[in-house]
């Protein structure tokens, strides 16, 4: 089984702790001048996103996590599972709601997503940073209002609700930043 020595620790390294895969966020080397050295790390649990602090005696080894990212195309949702395809091999994979999480409200068929695989199975799905989605419902705004302030809620075709300026209407396409959940601009297909 692959493992890492603490001297290989750096942010981004994927390790196994208590049966879960973790990503090293921060690695601090701690050592009294005349004593034992330690690696004090902040790690993020890749299953639930929680960040915790762990200490290792320098020189100890930790099991490596078989985690890597791959670009996959989102195909469809069958009501229970989300289906993705590797565009190079046409291999398909399914992910459930715990894996897809909040990403579900941003993605639609054909979108390319970053799928994180753990031991070959989907662990997390990340939407593209920007998506273009159709507004299915929003209250009519006042004509001629082009100010940036205020805004109104708009429901998108995927079910997500974002705040849009008053001049944006139902049936229009908008560009949204999925990392912040904020409206960016109107869009053409």
């Amino acid at each position, binding site marked *: 089984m692959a493992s890492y020595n603490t001297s290989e620790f750096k942010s981004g390294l994927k390790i196994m702790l208590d049966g879960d895969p973790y990503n090293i966020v921060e690695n601090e080397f701690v*050592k009294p001048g005349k004593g034992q050295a330690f690696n004090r790390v902040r790690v993020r649990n890749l299953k639930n996103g929680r960040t915790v602090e762990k200490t290792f005696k320098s020189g100890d080894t930790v099991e490596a996590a078989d985690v890597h990212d791959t670009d996959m195309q989102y195909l469809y949702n069958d009501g229970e599972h989300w289906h993705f395809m590797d565009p190079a091999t046409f291999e398909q994979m399914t992910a459930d709601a715990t894996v897809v999480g909040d990403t579900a409200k941003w993605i639609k068929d054909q979108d390319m997503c970053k799928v994180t695989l753990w031991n070959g199975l989907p662990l997390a799905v990340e939407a593209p940073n920007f998506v273009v989605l159709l507004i299915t419902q929003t209250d009519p705004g006042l004509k001629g209002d082009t100010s940036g302030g205020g805004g109104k809620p708009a429901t998108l075709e995927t079910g997500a609700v974002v705040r849009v300026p008053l001049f944006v209407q139902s049936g229009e396409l908008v560009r949204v930043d999925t990392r912040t959940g904020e409206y960016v601009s109107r869009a053409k297909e």
Partner: protein
Amino acid sequence: MSPSPGLEVTDWSPSAALEAIRARAAMLSRLRGFFAVAGVLEVETPITARSAGSDPALDSLVTCWHGPGYPRGLPLYLQTSPEFPMKRLLAAGLGPIYQICKVFRDGERGRLHHPEFSLLEWYRPGFGYQALMDEVAALVRCVLERPDLRSECITYRGLFRERLGLDPWAAGVSALRERALAAGITGIESTEMDRDGWLDLLLTHCLEPGLGVGRLTFLTDYPPSQAALARLRVDEVPVAERFELYLDGVELANGFQELTDATAQAARFHADQDTRRRQGRVTLPLDECFLAALAAGMPESAGVALGLDRLLMAHLHECHIDAVLAFPVERA
């Protein structure tokens, strides 16, 4: 030669601000002024030696010299500290001496660590370690230009008793492990360490961040198992006459009432070698010249080593050592 992995060729510039590089020069000038007034002589000793330090907590870097008599090369160890040759100068009768030099430690790198760093080491024949602590405080105040910086002295045993409710002389491995877990340190549940390892864990994680906050804190009188090259004294319990200086949670200096007994020193060397063997590490040639100097008679002295990069960090309110180094190892 191609640059190291992850380094862009355009990273030719220093990682320290030019102001920090100038501040280092000013610091060195103040240090030399301080010692000139104090009547302490500046010396130079070799940074490489055919013997290495024995401290099990330190690993030496090694290079190889080829020359007359050594066609196949002589391994030379880069010093982890100039302690042994400087003590030979004390034994030779030179009087109070100081040195500003680079020292080297394998395996160390982090916010407060760099594989080579600048050390100020000085020795005061005839001083007790209390008197030396006063001089250390005076020097730090001078370099930091903070004449009003207060200083305090607390014992290792007092600190652990007061802050962690345990006696570091009495607590066993399982009690120390439990205390670490109770303090919320995780990841070490199944780690195997000796008593000193657990004490170091508690010190670095629970105690050090609170030491020297806005003042100079001298931590003194260490467990005998952490004596290094300090003399032992029997109080209520046996203690090593050793001190460390902290400022704002950062360890700046380590000093000793120096062990001057050649037989006791040889015994510590061998104990260190045993520890290294037990840990499955290489044992290195011992400094026989140093032992011979002790046998010839080294005056009773107090000595201290102070990390100059960290002192400069404190002066400039920097929290990463790279901010005071022209070229850290990654771009050296």
